[in-house]
């Protein structure tokens, strides 16, 4: 832990998150909101990044994003719990448990099959939610203001700071994981599964661990999104386009760093806000063009661009 905090990159990340938290005192609400959405979504993207480093991409993480969000909503409407920490803890737990179970199936698959099977699972959840009135059907639920140990903040700023803090902790933990022996297998597994097995470690298990990590993060992201927005519903939390968005941001951000997902997600929020405001008839066109632009001219994602600006050329492995 301590040696992690000593690293230069981590110092920078810490600084950036601190700055973001402080910025909420001066920035106008709508920017703070978009930042908040960005940070929340960024957590899910961070999860996908962990998978992507292994060469796996899930087209169904909307499943866990939605589970997290719905856990928060249902916890309120059925149990009446609105506490920040309980909400997040519950969201993470539910997502991670489901991820752990499905992991036993998914860890056997690679490439496009992994992607499509995840998609199928997420669409089954979508069907169930859209169908069941007890789960709010397509209207979903509104989520009321988050309380912190019984205290009801007047505005969303405390929530924003909390989310920023959580995001930071998550980044550090993922960083520790990626640096660890286990995390290092990421590249190993992508390169050569046979060798990993003959080094005495189970590839399936390594992938399972990664998968659960990514689902937990997606769950946290969903829960925070629900709190930030005050609304959950299947179409904007579970549908395949949601999963697609997450993958989109992952590619846009690039695999270069654990900080990239958050930069990518924040940029995505602003991109969408402006596209939507400037061209209500053609915002998909703008988003689509950006996607192609990134794929063609920024293979390493936005992070690679930042690195070029920093002059420190090639991708870091962690």
């Amino acid at each position, binding site marked *: 832990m301590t040696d992690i905090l000593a690293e230069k990159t981590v110092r920078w990340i810490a600084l950036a998150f601190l700055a973001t938290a402080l910025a909420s005192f001066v920035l*106008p*609400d709508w920017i703070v909101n978009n930042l908040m959405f960005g940070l929340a979504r960024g957590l899910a993207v961070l999860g996908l990044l962990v998978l992507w480093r292994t060469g796996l991409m899930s087209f169904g993480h909307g499943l866990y994003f939605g589970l997290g969000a719905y856990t928060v909503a249902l916890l309120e409407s059925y149990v009446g719990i609105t506490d920040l920490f309980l909400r997040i803890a519950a969201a993470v737990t539910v997502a991670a448990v489901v991820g752990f179970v499905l992991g036993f199936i998914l860890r056997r698959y690679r490439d496009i099959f992994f992607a499509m099977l995840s998609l199928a699972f997420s669409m089954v959840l979508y069907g169930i939610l859209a169908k069941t009135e007890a789960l709010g059907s*397509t209207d979903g639920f509104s989520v*009321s203001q988050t309380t912190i140990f019984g205290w009801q903040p007047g505005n969303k700023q405390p929530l924003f700071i909390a989310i920023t803090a959580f995001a930071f902790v998550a980044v550090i933990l993922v960083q520790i994981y990626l640096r660890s022996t286990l995390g290092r297998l990421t590249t190993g597994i992508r390169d050569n599964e046979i060798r990993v097995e003959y080094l005495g470690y189970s590839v399936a298990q390594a992938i399972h661990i990664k998968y659960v990590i990514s689902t937990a993060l997606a769950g946290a992201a969903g829960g925070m999104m629900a709190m930030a927005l005050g609304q959950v519903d299947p179409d904007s939390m579970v549908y395949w386009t949601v999963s697609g968005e997450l993958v989109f941001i992952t590619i846009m951000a690039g695999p270069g760093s654990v900080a990239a997902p958050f930069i990518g997600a924040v940029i995505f929020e*602003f991109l969408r*806000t402006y596209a939507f*405001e400037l061209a*209500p*008839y053609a915002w998909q066109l703008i988003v689509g063009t950006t996607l192609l632009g990134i794929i063609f001219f*920024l293979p390493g994602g936005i992070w690679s661009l930042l690195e070029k600006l920093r002059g420190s050329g090639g991708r870091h492995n962690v």
Partner: protein
Amino acid sequence: MTISIRGLLKGAVISGLAATMALTSMPVAAKDKIKVGIVSFLSGPAAGPFGVPGRNGAELVVEALNKGTMPAPYNSKGFAGAQLEPVFVDESGGNTKQVAEYRNLVQKQEVDAVIGYISSGSCLSVAPVADELKRLTIISVCGSPRLFEEGDRSHVFRTTGHAVGDSVAASLYVRDKFADAKGYTGINQNYAWGQDSYKFFDLAMKTLNPNISASEKPQFPKIFAGQFGTEISTLSLDSAELVHSSFWDGDIEAFVLQASVRGFFKEKQFISTLGASAVDRLGKKFPKGVVMGTRGEYGILIRRGGSALNQWFVKAYRDKYGAYPLGPSYQYGQAVLALKLAMDKAAEKAGTFPDQDQIIDEFKGLSWDSFGGKISLSQGNGHQAVHPVGFGITDWDDEAGEPVIKDVKFYPSECVMPPAGQTGLQWLEAGMPGSTCLK
């Protein structure tokens, strides 16, 4: 790429800061301009039949009021003297996106009020945020009764009735015209609106037409599925001859096309609560003899004749957009009217340009003559409108070469709407106590 993104961010920060300053120093003195967000489907399947006609209705009325060219009693210029600058926003993209966009409207674009919302999903999700951000928000079309049943709203008003009225009126029309039917079933989209609509119709039928039996297999196809072959077969095999449907937009049109070729409308009595847009669109292709409603005194039901105001509206709309105004055009138009009235009254009382609270005070319980007839915000603590709901039967007018609705029958709000303080569901399950239409 970075340049643009940096520019983007810089622009964002600057405009944001500017906005906050504006906010801190906003005078309640006379304003010559107010900014109002107008939200409706500008893309996606609902744009054609709902979003764009709604948007046009709003635009038409706004322009007329700004110029002061509307007939009495709305011939005074502007809104409390101010010109209204509309900001049109697309409602498509899911509820979550709508919440985000609503926040942007209020916090980024600094609108003074928001008018709109067609889908029950988006209005239900936006309402709490409206109260949280304390911005006057007028729901124009959205039909979910839950909007005010989940508790009082401080800043949200709805200037049109909701699904309970539609379903009750539909089953009343059945009682009046098809009392001897044996059974009823339905085909509704598999999402909250469709599920609610059929549930209400089902309950109303049980109260009003106890001798007509319900089918075991009402259909709930996926919304915008487009292919209804299988559902049509199932309905055809079903013995029930009444078929209720809250289909709208592309689905009603696709269903009618696929069903009419299969002679469906000859065997079954189709009851459509929301399909009026298809009647104009499909013209002669739309079968005669379908029970059709427009959720109130709107659109094709009152297209011909009506008040001077209505005639002005129909003519002005046709001149500007080359088509008849549809239900949504009326509903968006009358939402704008309501805003003007409330602002004018508030200004009168205050003697200066009114602030939002003064406007809201006037808005509560407001009642005004709309194009179709009287609308009064008499429910949900003066936030929810009630008005008569009517149904008729589709027909084709050969001279005019256009579709018409005959045998139109309107049912007063006291008879189709639950009394204040009761949720639609409770009321229907209790057998509609207090309804003036119970025999």
